[in-house]
């Protein structure tokens, strides 16, 4: 993600994590280790509403430039926060390695994240440690595989007319 703003020398830091610009929106790149700690600090800053938590599988973009010297991993958990008092949005992106896709749960900080995490586990197979009820939410219980991974075949049935590959 080439952030279009010039990489300022003194990178803006928020709770010790680099902040980058993405199309005019502030994005914090948080290492997986102190993910929950930074979220708690952000809640104290006023970002008390968790709007959305989702995953992205960067299998086909391994050498992308995440910006601010962060090592790109295969998975990424993206959390959108909203502060009603400051009327501001903030996006938190956490890199999750492909071979060991586990990350801590946010359930104790934001109870609303419980369903988002179940959906991200269901679609990407990212395990959220400490989640009260980590089961599938969208797919049937006995479904094999995680559909939104890039190596998951979209399961198209060949259509009848020739040459149509769209």
């Amino acid at each position: 993600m080439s952030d279009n703003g010039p990489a300022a020398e003194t990178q803006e830091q928020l709770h010790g994590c680099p902040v980058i610009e993405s199309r005019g929106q502030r994005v914090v790149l948080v290492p997986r280790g102190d993910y929950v700690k930074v979220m708690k600090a952000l809640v104290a800053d006023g970002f008390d509403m968790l709007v959305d938590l989702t995953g992205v599988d960067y299998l086909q973009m391994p050498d992308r430039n995440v910006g601010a010297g962060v090592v790109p991993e295969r998975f990424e958990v993206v959390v959108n926060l909203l502060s009603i008092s400051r009327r501001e949005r903030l996006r938190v992106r956490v890199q999750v390695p492909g071979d060991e896709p586990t990350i801590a749960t946010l359930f104790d900080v934001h109870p609303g994240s419980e369903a988002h995490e179940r959906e991200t586990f269901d679609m990407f197979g990212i395990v959220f440690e400490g989640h009260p009820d980590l089961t599938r939410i969208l797919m049937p219980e006995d479904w094999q595989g995680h559909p939104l991974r890039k190596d998951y075949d979209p399961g198209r049935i060949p259509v009848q007319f020739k040459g149509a590959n769209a």
Partner: protein
Amino acid sequence: MSVAEHDTTDVDAPVPGPRERTVSAITGEGGQELSSRAGMGAKELLREVGAVLRMSESEAAALADIEADPDEDQTMIINMGPQHPSTHGVLRLMLELQGETVLRCKPIIGYLHTGMEKTGEQLTYMQGGTNVTRMDYLSPLNNELAFSLAVEKLLGIDGDIPERAVWMRMLLSELNRMSSHLLFLATNGMDIGAVSMMLYGWREREEVLRFFQKVTGLRMNHNFIRPGGLAADLPAGWRDDVLDILEMLPSRMEEYEILMNGQPIWRERLQGVGVITAREAMALGTSGPILRSTGVAWDLRKHMPYLRYDQVDFDVVVGAYGDAYDRFAIRLNEIRESMRIVYQILDRMPQGDFRVQNKKVTPPPRARIDESMEALIHHFKIFTEGFKVPEGEVYVGIESPRGEIGCYIVSDGSSNPYRMHMRAPSFVNIQAMPHMMRGGMVADAVAVISSVDPVLGEVDR
């Protein structure tokens, strides 16, 4: 007529050859279902009981009177399943009842999962609107608006969308809010028992759908708001049609007021039902009428304005008690606010073209294709391969009738989005249901579902 006997023996191992195997034997969802209390962790039990805020067990127990819950064999776990008249689509709720009182509730969703986010990764940005518009099928234009705004921000052209296109988008999005709230009034009335309300609500909604059919060509799933502007201009005489709708509605709204909140039965059924407090609503991340019913004044159109909502004055409608009656009254009055906005839009609708004139994004008009080769090439490239969007990721949130619809797109420079995720308001609002149903009667459960007004298309995506 021979009738094959259906044996619902358990599903045996999947034998390669096509063997007669009934599908009806495997509707159980195992881990996703409501399990008995013994085999559950304290945290999950607290969540299903609905204790939302971050409290210790003792605090929550005091508040949620868990000890008062009877032991296992007095309660009955029933299924308010996917095919149910009052679950607004294919939502399945498992309720643990003690007699008539709901003790625990667990929503089980996924019965309408369409893999739209996977399909979104195969369609170009041009075709993305058709996929997104089928998520929240009660307000399709708002979905398209969220998707188009996100793509335009990625392209960097969100500054030079022509004025007329912006104001037309506001007009269509507000009319769509009115048609969606009219349908809420209809189904809310029928769920609570005023079946005739279904007919009145639909009578008005048909007027708005007829206007949509005249402008976009379709009653639903329009794909009219596209990245770069709109698909076509407003037809001649659109102003009188909108004025007809706006003149007809106020008298009908009085009818609703007399039919519904004038009656003590209606108030008795809805007041004090499905109560949620401000901090709990915020903790669960709910948005829209549910958050506003607790008194929190948060409306993206007013507090984080997009399009030209900052140049239009309207009130944020807010409740005070956080119960089902407040949510009903909020939606009823939001129709009036939308009418106020539409009147202002009618006065200020500028002239001009309805799509951005950037060659790379907008296909050339049909006439020019015959004259200039370059227009033909543009037309061909845009429609076959689609326009390329520079690398980047963006999140745009707008206010839909149910709450905040957010569109998060990651693009890798090609003409297909690399990842397209829609943040659905109903998905989060449904998670607040166990909290509202705790302790209520089964009939109140129906009132709570109806007041949350979930649309399962956007929940399951």
